[in-house]
């Protein structure tokens, strides 16, 4: 597999897996409007994943986007581990989404300047959608944080629990460095300050505490995951694996 293919998969997999998690909210949302909102966001992310996987498949030439989504094993997925964690309660999902949206907005803004025209185009398209998602998730963080004592306690706990999974956003391995150097990829170190500013401002409005620095979870760039990923894949990939000739 080429470096570029692997790099695209990392971006695509995070979108695909968190999209699948959000789709699990469909028909279970706390209100009808939120049910629709989470499903809409899931759909946008699935679309972004699809565009990226199609691009990856076109470079490869031998496999399809569906093969990439449905015929890879857990160790061949490179999504951030935060994307695969269980939905928990609504506040958990909102915090996970807020951390992810704020990061991906910055990431795609930089990726839109990529020398690779297709990546740049997909990023430019995605930015419009992610801005909308971020507005939704940050409004909810503020509403729950600055809500009742119970909602505040719950969302603070959610944030504390997810925090150790945010370190992966800014990790750079050899591949990241190589892609950033040739101006196709993004220098992740450079995103950190701006990300801190965005999340700190929202935490302040929400009157919740930014968790202390801690040891961060790592591994997804090497295909290491929590036990939750396999459970997602067993559902997500069931049909194409059980019925390889199925058409839809």
């Amino acid at each position, binding site marked *: 597999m080429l470096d570029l293919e692997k790099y695209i998969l990392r971006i695509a997999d995070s979108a695909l897996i968190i999209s699948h998690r959000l789709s699990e909210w469909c028909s279970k949302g706390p209100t009808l*409007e939120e049910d*629709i*909102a989470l499903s*809409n*966001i*899931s*759909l*946008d*992310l*699935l*679309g*972004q994943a*699809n*565009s990226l996987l199609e691009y990856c498949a076109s470079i490869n030439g031998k496999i399809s986007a569906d093969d990439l989504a449905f015929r890879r094993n857990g160790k061949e997925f490179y999504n951030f581990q935060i994307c695969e964690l269980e939905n928990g309660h609504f506040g958990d999902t909102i915090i996970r989404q807020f951390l992810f949206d704020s990061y991906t907005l910055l990431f795609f803004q930089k990726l839109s300047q990529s020398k690779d*025209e*297709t990546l*740049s*185009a*997909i990023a*430019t*398209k*995605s930015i*419009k*959608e992610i801005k*909308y998602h971020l*507005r*939704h998730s940050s409004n909810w963080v503020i509403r729950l944080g600055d809500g009742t004592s119970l909602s505040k306690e719950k969302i603070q706990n959610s944030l504390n629990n997810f925090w150790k999974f945010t370190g992966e956003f800014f990790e750079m391995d050899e591949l990241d460095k190589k892609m950033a150097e040739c101006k196709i990829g993004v220098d992740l170190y450079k995103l950190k300050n701006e990300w801190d500013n965005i999340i700190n401002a929202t935490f302040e409005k929400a009157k919740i505490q930014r968790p202390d620095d801690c040891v961060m979870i790592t591994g997804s760039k090497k295909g290491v995951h929590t036990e939750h990923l396999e459970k997602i894949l067993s559902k997500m990939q069931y049909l194409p694996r059980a019925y390889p000739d199925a058409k839809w």
Partner: protein
Amino acid sequence: MQNGNINKIWTILGSVPDPEIPVISVVELGVIRDVKLIENQYVISVTPTYSGCPAVKTFQDDIKTQLKVNDIHNFKIDIVYKPAWTTDWMTKETKEKLKKYGISPPGKTVQCPQCDSTNIELISEFGATACKSMHKCVECLEPFEHFKCI
């Protein structure tokens, strides 16, 4: 003929409705970016509204069907992402059609499509399709959908 059937293709595309909002065509929606004749093949450039919009697949199939019905077979559909789709590409006439259909068109302010009031409440930033949000008019009390401005 140098341009061959290009004009005819545009006319055919103009008759393919948006699957979710059948009152406007895919051309009026702004998703058809170009029709070119390249080496005896018509290349139709299409851009998605929202990345995951399921209507994109549906209208591609509709386009293929309509072109074949009209005896045009040497074509392919190319998906282009840049420049990203924007509601700015909708003409005034298209926006008027949306309004008549009961959807508040994209614009700087959200206006009730029934009574034109701008005294409105947001019900939900997300609606039945990716491109719409839900509102309620405080004056005439009618709930309505708004085509989001992106």
